[in-house]
């Protein structure tokens, strides 16, 4: 049941584009998982989510605000974000939904109907 949080580290190979791995949180509920990924500066248009070979890849390309002037103190990294998760087989990949708000991506990954805990009443 822990495969959701296992990352595929070699997914970064053979890529010319530089990505940084954004911080993420995973919450498991009874109906599914909620994944939160921090992507400041990413809008809906720069956000890309794909699912292949049981791997969920999230890419966020930033559109940073243009600021006039000389950079005199620099801490941010201009790279785009990418993160890959291997999904638990219990997740219904067709029902994954995503939203992005204030640079925070929230993914809802519902569990397939047949694996949801079910309460059986004794008659």
């Amino acid at each position, binding site marked *: 049941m822990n495969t959701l949080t296992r990352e595929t580290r070699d997914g970064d190979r053979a890529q010319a584009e530089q990505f940084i791995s954004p911080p993420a*949180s995973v919450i498991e509920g009874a109906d599914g998982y909620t994944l939160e990924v*921090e992507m400041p500066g990413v809008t809906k248009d720069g956000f890309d989510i794909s699912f292949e070979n049981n791997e969920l890849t999230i890419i966020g390309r930033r559109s940073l605000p243009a*600021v006039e002037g*000389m950079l005199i103190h*620099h*801490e941010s990294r201009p790279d785009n974000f990418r993160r890959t998760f291997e999904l638990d087989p219990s997740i219904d990949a067709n029902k994954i939904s995503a939203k992005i708000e*204030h*640079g925070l991506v929230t993914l809802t990954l519902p569990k397939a109907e047949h694996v949801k805990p079910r309460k059986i009443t004794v008659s």
Partner: protein
Amino acid sequence: MDLIRYQTRDLAPWSALDRWGNLRDELNSFFEMPFWSGFARAGQLFTGWSPALDLYESGDNVVAVVELPGMRKEDIDISLHDGTLTISGERKRESTGGGKAQRTERYVGTFRRSIALPTRVDADKVTATYQDGILKVTLPKAEEAKPKQIQVS
């Protein structure tokens, strides 16, 4: 909370040793505070949420850009005191809806960033926007700090 008193302390100039500067500031403020309140804030020192801050300077403005994903506008505080810009705030722990956190990499709690501004600014004209998780604070320079062309007559 008395935010004002922390803004008056001397800030080290920014340098590659910025993280040590932060640590020193934290330790200083830890000892300046009453015992119990120091403990309440100690968590911040160890979790270390220090959002990335960029500072730009143009002829008319100084602009600070801070990465603050997933905040609420109301939870961000910006203050200006003695030429030091302080941006602080709190990200509240969201309810997990009864779920179990499997992995928590996102910081929850308070943060505070202070930066000494390179020139004097007009405090009344400071504006800030928060969009796509990025806070942009525009601080127009004070008239006397703007570059001036002087004609040789």
